[in-house]
């Protein structure tokens, strides 16, 4: 059976994505900081779906350990990881992110640098092996910065550009790269926050993600209507956009 690695596996989307791949009969490596939580999810997945699931410690900000982490992951997966989903992320308070350097830096490091660093390692391995899929959860927010979340949005936009290039590079080696852009998702990230609407359950995101990866899609919006919403948002002329409050 194949092994799928989920980074950020105790996030709402990470957990749902893990369930989706487990239900399809894949073994799962759950990576994240909260080992107690990941262990419980691992037990749940193997009990529900009759697959093997293992928890693996990963502090995405500990860049120096990324290589060691990936070796451990490979060892747990008996030398071969068939796909990876990167689902970790941080949504900072925008007011803090635009005034406090530590918050700015940790947002960039968590959302962009750590993902890029992990992907540098993973893509190399997949490319050498000439198989595998890479899937990264970004956000519709990356399509156009807004005054209310542009630090977060810029990390997702940066990651989107990284993935565009990576996709071009590894396509030649039969490796797919899927960028998943969810709208508002019903997880702890936005629970209780004002100004959210059309909130989708994480299971919906996971279903769309799985289907997109299976079909080798490069970029999807989930739920689908965000593609058209964001097209609209992107097409607002800047002279108008700068007067807007949303």
């Amino acid at each position, binding site marked *: 059976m194949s092994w799928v690695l989920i980074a950020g596996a105790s996030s709402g989307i990470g957990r749902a994505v893990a369930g989706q791949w487990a239900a399809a009969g894949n073994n799962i490596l759950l990576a994240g900081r909260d080992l107690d939580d990941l262990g419980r999810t691992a*037990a*749940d997945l193997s009990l529900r779906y009759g697959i093997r699931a293992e928890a693996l410690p990963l502090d995405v900000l500990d860049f120096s350990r990324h290589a060691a982490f990936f070796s451990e992951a490979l060892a747990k997966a008996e030398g071969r990881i068939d796909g990876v989903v990167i689902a970790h992320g941080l949504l900072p308070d925008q007011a803090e992110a635009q005034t406090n350097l530590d918050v700015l830096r940790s947002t960039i490091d968590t959302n962009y640098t750590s993902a890029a660093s992990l992907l540098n390692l993973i893509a190399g391995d997949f490319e050498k092996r000439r198989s595998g899929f890479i899937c990264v959860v970004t956000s519709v927010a990356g399509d156009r910065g807004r005054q209310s979340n542009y630090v977060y949005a810029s990390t997702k936009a940066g990651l989107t550009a990284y993935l565009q290039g990576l996709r071009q590079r590894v396509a030649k080696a039969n490796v797919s790269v899927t960028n998943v852009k969810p709208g508002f998702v019903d997880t*702890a990230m936005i629970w209780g926050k004002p100004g959210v609407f059309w909130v989708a359950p994480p299971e919906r995101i996971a279903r769309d993600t799985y289907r997109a990866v299976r079909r080798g899609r490069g970029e999807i919006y989930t739920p689908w209507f965000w593609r058209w919403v964001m097209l609209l948002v992107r097409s607002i002329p800047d002279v108008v956009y700068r007067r807007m409050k949303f």
Partner: protein
Amino acid sequence: MQLSGWGNVIRQPARVFRPEKRSEIQDVLNQVNGSSIIARGLGRSYGDAALNERGSVLLGTRLHRFNSFDSSTGILECEAGATFSEIIDTFLPRGFFPAVTPGTRFVTVGGAIAADVHGKNHHRDGSIANFVEGFDLLLASGEILICSRAQNTDTFWATIGGMGLTGVIVQAKLRLARVQSGYVAVDFKKTANLDQTLSAFAADDANYQYSVAWIDGLAKGAALGRSVLMRGNHARLSDLPVEFHDRALLPPQVRHRNVPFHFPSFALSPLTVRLFNSRYYCRHEDGRQILHFDEFFYPLDAVEHWNRVYGRRGFYQYQAVFPQSDGGSGLRELMEKVSNSGRASFLAVLKSMGERSGGLLSFPMPGLTLALDLPNAGRRTVDLLRDLDQIVLRHGGRVYLAKDATLTRENFEAMYPDLPRFKEVQQQLDPSNRFSSSLARRLGIGAGQ
């Protein structure tokens, strides 16, 4: 955030927390120091049991993982937010089914324990309490107490049926029943009046694992209590046609319908309900049918948000039990009262109940229980419910807290004789009353009350 019970009558604001990790439950408890909190699952209690007006509510729905399952004993250990629906989806294909299930599968394990739910097999198997091996309870002190039938038994029996007022159930061990199929072999039988219904229960309920009667809540006079009895046993493989054998344990492919908005208030007038009831009664014929568990146990689950057919004003669900010794007289009086009031009751369900469970605030007792839906018509409905409470009280019965929205403190105290013992245990566990709900305050459960 505004929350309401399943009956949609009471809507109240509360601060709602929804932890996604085990460790966050404790964090929430520390965070709300000063205001009270109540655990909530899928919100299927009808009244105000899972509401906490201007207090805090802990939504347990994101903590629903299975920890372990022993197929030799059928014991499942899971987090309290696990639903009966996912238990069935996962374990029916392995030959297991909840040993007791309420009329919806959209309930959590934690909620089921807190309400000590019963099902169509109560006369034989009792309530869920009989299948709870133990649970971990987060106390007001922040400590986690391991409770079982042998350990911390006072807390165990105060928590089963305790409506969440002793603490937060974090995880539980539940014993599932072994089954050969997901089907029930049901015998239908129509009766012309209440006497016939009751004597049918008395004559051969013992032959059936599951027994329930749909009762026409609007029939009057000689037809009062006319019913369609639905009694059956979990189908063995040999009960099924051969072509079903290889999919006997598979979940059904059901089409789920939804009620996307609240119906207008005239949709359920006494006339439409009368038409529905007559049609329902006439449509059924005596005889045996093999029904899928979804049709037999959970007919309403096929329609998401079915509660919206009662419109924005919502409805009351009223369930009472009369003791065996009462011999049906209280039941008759109650049915006459409802029937004469002309307050349309869409769904009225009667069943016989078996032994008590030991839960200090548990509802079931040996006798007959009747559940009915009453559209909310304001003051008149509440007055009617108060009258019903008096009838129940006079005949030594009690009202089910998971459905109740209107009981008074005095009537509650008279109906639940183990209440003083419950309060003793609850006060020891939670002297500063950190766990409270709108129901608890209405009924005077808690410190200083």
